[in-house]
């Protein structure tokens, strides 16, 4: 029998890694991917809880999270491409239009 | 409940913003049409307000009051009286005309008109608000679009000018807010309502009044602007695009003066009395100093900007007099300065569009080349220098006449300022229109119909008020009389 605690530790690890990526990646696509990692970590937790209590809501939520993540990614990438067209860069620290 | 005409006026531009946002930015023509329509509707409503206004009554009219934030006794309270009616009309008129003058703004028209309409709402709200908190909110709403309008569509040093304007005004409004909060906590029961505060104004101790007055003074003085807080003005005016300069000079400066009329004087009359002499001296310094500095300018727009400093001095002088004549003159001068200097800035813009320079030394002899423009420039210049028959004269005359019994020496110094005023205005005319023609401009084109549309109404108003000024006094007189009575009554 697998240990739920271990799964949750694993989820925390993935979360931390994703966060690290979101913090350090210069490439906006990299940031997006890191965010996917974070979302996955959340999903793992949800599913683990569903398993723990035998409740279906966790899984249902995970499905919704996947759906939302898909939407977020689509829009994020579209913005990215639009920005790339204008700014010719995908590096987040170069996109400083709002900076004075 | 009455028909909420004031809210309608104030928020028509917001409706315009929503409409503009719905239009794709490529469709600049439609955006312009919508913006013009929004400002035009506001103008029509403003005219309707003028017609519906009861001129015999100097008290607040068309009042709208709804609770907004109950905990702090803040309400959404609008109203109009003789003090604000002319300002509201000036705002909707200049906004409409400057909107037409904005057609040639280069690039990002959608953003431009959104910010522009937001600016109009802010200005109208400031003049209509009867709650200090609401007043402050609108006051700050003006600031933000102005910052972007100067900072994005401005001239070569636009960033510097925009930041300077923003920081300067913000610094002032922080003090103003402090003053408001002090008033709130001292009033009993705590209230931000201007009318309530006016009623209870006898209760404030003189020391408290002085402190609050100075705090408000800083906020308003920067906006007016009063020497030595005026240096943001030439930079902002010169760098701002033409229509924004018009609004800056025509309306924004009036917000400071209006603050004195609406808040400082009725709520803090004893402090106002205490500060009358310094204010009169500052007024004279504004008049004389502004005129002298204007004389040294070779940049057309900067000259007009400094002439604004000079003209606003008459407002201060009239305020300081605390007589009905002087206060009427001051309020009238605010209106006239709006129309005349607004027109001057439009004319600078017309010339700049054709020559791409504002250097007065590079013009000359244009009078023969573009006679219609020359005629308009002459009329507005003469209005600005205070020629009788045009409105500027009447208001300056009234403020001086009202001040003379109170401060003789100061008035005499101020009157001698009209010589310097005449001198730099005539130098301006000579450098632009007279003398031998500079061959660079031999192909210069005459003012076009769109530009005429923006200028002729202003000229008509200037002429009308110059020839029949009592009409304006009918409008503002009762309210000013009430104010003076109130201030005088509290002093006795």
């Amino acid at each position, binding site marked *: 029998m697998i240990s739920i605690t271990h799964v949750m530790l694993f989820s925390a690890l993935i979360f931390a890694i994703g*966060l690290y990526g*979101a*913090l*350090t990646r210069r490439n906006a696509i990299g*940031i997006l991917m890191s965010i996917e990692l974070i979302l996955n970590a959340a999903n793992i937790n949800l599913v683990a809880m569903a398993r723990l209590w035998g409740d279906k809501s966790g899984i249902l939520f995970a499905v919704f999270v996947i759906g939302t993540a898909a939407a977020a990614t689509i829009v994020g990438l579209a913005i990215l491409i639009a920005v790339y067209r204008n700014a010719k860069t995908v590096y*987040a*620290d170069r996109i*400083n239009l709002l900076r*004075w | 409940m009455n028909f909420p005409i004031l809210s309608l006026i104030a928020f028509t531009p917001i409706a315009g913003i929503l409409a503009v946002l719905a239009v794709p930015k490529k469709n600049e023509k439609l955006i312009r049409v919508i913006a013009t329509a929004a400002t035009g509707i506001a103008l029509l409503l403003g005219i309707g307000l003028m017609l519906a206004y009861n001129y015999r009554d100097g008290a607040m009219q068309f009042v709208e009051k709804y609770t907004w934030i109950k905990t702090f006794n803040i309400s959404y309270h609008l109203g109009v009286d003789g003090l604000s009616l002319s300002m509201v009309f000036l705002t909707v008129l200049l906004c409409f005309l400057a909107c037409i003058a904005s057609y040639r703004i280069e690039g990002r028209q959608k953003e431009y008109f959104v910010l522009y309409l937001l600016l109009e709402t802010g200005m109208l709200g400031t003049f209509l608000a009867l709650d200090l908190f609401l007043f402050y909110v609108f006051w700050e709403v003006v600031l933000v679009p102005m910052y972007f309008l100067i900072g994005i569509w401005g001239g070569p040093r636009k960033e510097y000018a925009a930041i*300077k304007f923003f*920081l*300067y005004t913000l610094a002032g409004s922080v003090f103003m807010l402090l003053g408001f909060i002090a008033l709130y906590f001292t009033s009993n029961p705590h209230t931000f309502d201007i009318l309530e505060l006016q009623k209870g104004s006898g209760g404030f101790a003189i020391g408290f009044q002085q402190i609050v007055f100075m705090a408000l003074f800083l906020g308003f003085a920067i906006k007016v602007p009063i020497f030595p*807080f*005026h*240096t943001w003005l030439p930079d902002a005016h010169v760098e701002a695009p033409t229509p924004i300069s018009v609004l800056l000079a025509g309306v924004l400066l009036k917000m400071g003066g209006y603050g004195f009329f609406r808040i400082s004087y009725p709520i803090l009359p004893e402090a106002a009395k205490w500060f009358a002499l310094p204010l009169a001296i500052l007024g004279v310094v504004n008049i004389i*100093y502004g005129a*002298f*500095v204007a*004389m*040294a300018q070779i940049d057309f727009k900067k000259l007009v900007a400094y002439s604004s400093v000079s003209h606003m001095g008459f407002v201060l002088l009239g305020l300081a007099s605390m*007589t*009905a*004549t002087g206060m*009427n003159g001051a309020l009238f001068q605010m209106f006239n300065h709006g129309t005349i200097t607004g027109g001057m800035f439009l004319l600078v813009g017309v010339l700049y569009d054709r020559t791409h320079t504002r250097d007065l030394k590079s013009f000359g*002899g244009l*009078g*023969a080349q573009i*006679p219609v423009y020359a005629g308009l420039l002459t009329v507005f210049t*003469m209005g600005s220098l205070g*020629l*009788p*028959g045009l409105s500027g*004269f*009447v208001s300056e*005359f*009234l403020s*001086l*006449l009202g001040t*003379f019994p109170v401060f003789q020496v100061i008035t*005499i110094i101020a*009157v*001698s300022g*009209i*010589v*310097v005023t*005449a*001198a730099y205005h*005539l*130098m301006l005319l*000579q450098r632009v229109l*007279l*003398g*031998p*023609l500079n061959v660079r401009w031999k192909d210069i084109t005459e003012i076009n119909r769109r530009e005429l549309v923006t200028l002729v109404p202003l000229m008509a108003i200037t002429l009308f008020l110059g020839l*029949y*000024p*009592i009409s304006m*006094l009918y409008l503002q*007189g009762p309210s000013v*009389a009430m104010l003076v009575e109130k201030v005088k009554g509290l002093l006795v």
Partner: protein
Amino acid sequence: MMNYPYLIPLFPLMAFAANILFGKKLGKKSALVSIAASTASAALSISAFVNFLRGSVASVSFAWLNVNGAPVMFGILVDQLSLMMLLVVSVIGTLIQVYSTGYMSDDKRFSRFFAYMSLFMFSMLSLVLSNNFMMIYIFWELVGVCSYFLISFWFEKDSAANAGKKAFITTRIGDVGLFIGLAMIFWLSGSPYFSDLPAIAQNPDRVLLTAAAILIFCGAVGKSAQFPLHVWLPDAMEGPTPVSALIHAATMVAAGVYLVARCYPLFAACPAALVVVAYIGIVTAFMAGTIALVVNDIKRILAYSTISQLGYMIAALGCGGYTAGTFHLMTHAFFKALLFLGAGSVIHGVHTQDIRQMGGIFSKMKITAATFIIASLAIAGVPPLAGFWSKDEILVSMFASGNYVIFGLAYLTSIFTAFYMFRLCFIVFFGRPRKADLHAHESPAVMTVPLMVLAFFSIFIGLVGSPLMHNWFGHFVTFGEGHHGGAPAGLIMGASVAAGVIGIAIAFALYILKWQLVPQAVRIRFTWLHTLLINKYYMDEIYLSAIIRPIALLSKYSFRFDKNLIDGVVNWTGLFSLFLSEVKNSFDKHVVDGLVNGAAKLVDLCSGHARRLQTGLIQNYMLFIIAGLVIILFVNLIR
């Protein structure tokens, strides 16, 4: 008969509107519009005059402005003085506009010229009809601006543009005085109406009253080109000659005299003010008369002559000669307008203004020359021409006032007047042409007919104030001073004639009989005097270095002050030694500006490190958010 005096100024106003709006379409017809308007004004003036004699006075008034809670009613004041001025202005104005159609026929801004002329007629007629100080001040300024437009009418010439500016600013200095005087009258009495002046004059505060009177006189000094503000009038000759005739000879410059006459109840109550008026007037008259002796530009001679004659009128008013001053105002208007128009005709014919290049053109321009000489005789005071009667009145009133210094100077001035006028006549019209290609020709009829009409007036207008008509004018326009019984009228009349004759005789001797040695000897003997006169007493230079330059400098330094950091701010900023290098850079930044920038720098300093927080990088912000989260979680964990 119709009696609508309030319509008098409105006709020219309509003409102005028509010409300024539709000038291009009207073309040459704009002259007709203007002339028709001023003819209508003249006709209405005459009808108002006739009605007045019959005892019916029309009045009209409307509220124009509220001052101190009471409305100021604008209305018209029809009395002897204003009627006289109305007639003079409208008749001369009409004649000069007729003349202008010929003189200005080739000008490319023909209709604009007539627009300005109409505007001037409107302003001047309204000024005359004003019934209160406020109204007169308004039209006072308006005639000033018309004068500005018309002087710099040929604005392509820098000299014309400068002259216009000079005229406007100089008169405005006087207007400052007028304004303060007006405010004082308001303050003292609360009433701006001329009809209340006798009551105002009863005010017990004599010092303030005198001050008010003198300040009002300042306005007259500016407008009537009296010493020390006379310098603009000679320069104003840059304008077209009809303008000089109408504005700078006959009407506008006389407005100052009119103002003093209008406020005479006030002046009469303040003897000190009257003394000031008298001395300013006579100093002006004498000084301008002497300068006119040496000037060589035909229009400038007339300009100085005008200043001198205006000084005469002012001095007469100052000496209590109310009737004399106003009478001279009327006669002078006619013959000086004639002189200017004649000069214009000469210039039109010979295309130069320098009298040293003219000569012997009598035969070629007979009408011009004849009328010019008539006017010269009139101004020299040769009986029975107009100038004789009025000048005689002035001398009598001066003598009667007992101020013999003034009388003496006035007498001397009248000799000078006769001399310089005939110096002009003899040099221009007689002898041989001094320039080879002087193709003089007579002007067209449209120009000569007005000359003849004016010549007619110059001869006969004086009779209305002469004993031949039982001094009708003296009874009509009077301030109750009565006839000067004390003065030996006959003697003075004789002396006055003698003065004119002496002046003409000297001129005849020098310029017709060619006693050239005499003036040369005089010139060598009194070189300094000649230099002084030819430089107009160095007034322009004095003003340039004493007023204009300092003001320009002041303006420059005000701007520098506004622009540059003053040391205090530098030091203040310098306290922050970290920014010493930047301070050096910003040495020439703005003063009050500097404060702002300094404040910004202070913030900069204080937040030197904290500023890095505001990187604008989202990831950076996120880092701090996470740091906060970690801290919160950690605190929660160990609790």
